């Protein structure tokens, strides 16, 4: 059965075009994906991301368990801080990507991808063993609203949030006497926050944000623009750019992996080997030179050899060209500036490997 978020009827009222995504009936666009994209870059946009999973981990062995699950060193996380992580399998392949928040000592919140949440909970339980930990999947009780764009912080200040948390920090606050978590995170490359709250308050807060946001030109934003925004910011999408056969090192996420982490974790030996010896393939960013749009699973060629595959591709409304992410063989003669070919409908289109992210991110304040 296709699931609905608490905000489902609000999307219908706003005229959204709805699609099935990851088992959820979600808004793909309200009016125009490009207009919604630009509104987040220039003003502020609201996203219903209530389909995402909320998993609470509590108990005195919480840290030990989490440290076993991800390559990041959770012992370095102080209360109120968040870290971007990968849930790795025994080979170091990525089962999901997460944000872990440390709410208090021995209490953490995991934000997981919607379609992976159940699998993740089972995997965490499997890894728990005799540890003194409670794993509570609260996904069905919580909603999540992302407020993203250069005017996002102005908007939530108007809602009575007294002090906006720093980048990758979470705090409890109150809006209209409603208790919420406010986190300075997002999936757009823009400044902004994500509000996590109990389901029964979601409609009230969503409509309050739309009303108070009018002066800032707020718009509701669908999954279509969420995808173009995250691609420009070069943020990976699980299932497209990341999967169980890919390590964080191949995925270009070495920056997020703790090389000095002393304790063992799932997949550690493979991941360390990938860091030391390099990988046979790697994630790169490219822009189309010829007029054409690269899409998921299109082939990448170089000198008459197939060297890889596109994992994400599309238009970049901000840059005004077409961009993409691809896994290619690690070859000495291929680096930033090299020309590659994307095979589109049996024809070859030139593209150039370029630095990521594709745009200047504005979220690190």
């Amino acid at each position, binding site marked *: 059965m296709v699931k609905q978020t608490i905000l489902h009827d609000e999307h219908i009222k706003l005229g959204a*075009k709805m699609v099935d995504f990851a088992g959820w009936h979600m808004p*793909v*666009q309200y009016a*125009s*994906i*490009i207009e919604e994209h630009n509104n987040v870059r220039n003003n502020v946009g609201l996203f219903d991301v209530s389909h995402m999973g909320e998993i609470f981990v509590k108990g005195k062995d919480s840290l030990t368990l989490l440290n076993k699950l991800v390559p990041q060193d959770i012992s370095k996380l102080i209360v109120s801080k968040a870290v971007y992580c990968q849930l790795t399998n025994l080979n170091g392949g990525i089962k999901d990507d997460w944000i872990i928040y440390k709410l208090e000592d021995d209490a953490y919140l995991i934000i997981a991808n919607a379609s992976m949440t159940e699998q993740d909970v089972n995997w965490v339980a499997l890894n728990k063993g005799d540890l003194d930990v409670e794993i509570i999947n609260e996904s069905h009780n919580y909603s999540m609203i992302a407020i993203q764009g250069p005017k996002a912080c102005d908007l939530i200040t108007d809602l009575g949030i007294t002090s906006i948390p720093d980048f990758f920090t979470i705090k409890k606050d109150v809006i209209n006497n409603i208790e919420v978590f406010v986190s300075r995170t997002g999936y757009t490359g823009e400044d902004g926050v994500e509000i996590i709250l109990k389901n029964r308050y979601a409609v009230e807060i969503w409509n309050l944000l739309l009303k108070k946001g009018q002066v800032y030109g707020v718009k509701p934003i669908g999954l*279509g623009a969420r*995808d*173009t925004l995250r691609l420009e910011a070069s943020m990976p999408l699980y299932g497209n750019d990341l999967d169980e056969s890919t390590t964080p090192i191949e995925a270009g996420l070495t920056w997020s992996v703790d090389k000095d982490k002393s304790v063992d974790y799932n997949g550690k030996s493979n991941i360390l080997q990938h860091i030391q010896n390099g990988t046979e393939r790697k994630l790169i960013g490219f822009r189309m030179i010829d*007029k*054409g*749009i690269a*899409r998921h699973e299109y082939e990448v060629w170089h000198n008459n050899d197939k060297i890889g595959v596109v994992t994400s591709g*599309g*238009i970049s409304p901000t840059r005004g060209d077409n961009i993409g992410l691809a896994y290619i063989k690690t070859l000495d003669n291929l680096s930033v500036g090299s020309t590659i070919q994307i095979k589109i*409908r049996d024809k070859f289109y030139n593209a150039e490997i370029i630095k990521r992210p594709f745009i200047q991110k504005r979220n690190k304040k």
Partner: protein
Amino acid sequence: MNENILCTKTHEYLLENNGQYEVGITDYAIEQLGDIVFIELPEVGTAFSKNEVFATIESVKAASEIYLPISGEVVEINEEVVDSPELLNDDSYNKKWLVKITSTADQLEFSDLLDYSDYKEEIE
């Protein structure tokens, strides 16, 4: 849309005009696609059989193949929409055909085409 168009179940339309046919996609198809960002059309002089892919239209989300409703030869392409694909989304733009074709198709090729009112019932 012009009430005289014939439509396919895959949302192309065909309109006879002075011995030629204009071929495009229906207003419903445009609405479903959303922002159109890329249009690839064949060269003038190319011949296609009925239901053969003759064009590709890409929205932000995906690429869609466009099928020729009847067999024919391309005699003109709409360069304006190739240069500015977003014109297809513009309600005030009235030249929404993709190609013009000549055709010697027999009646059989028309038998599965729907007139506009039947098409509208079909999509409801």
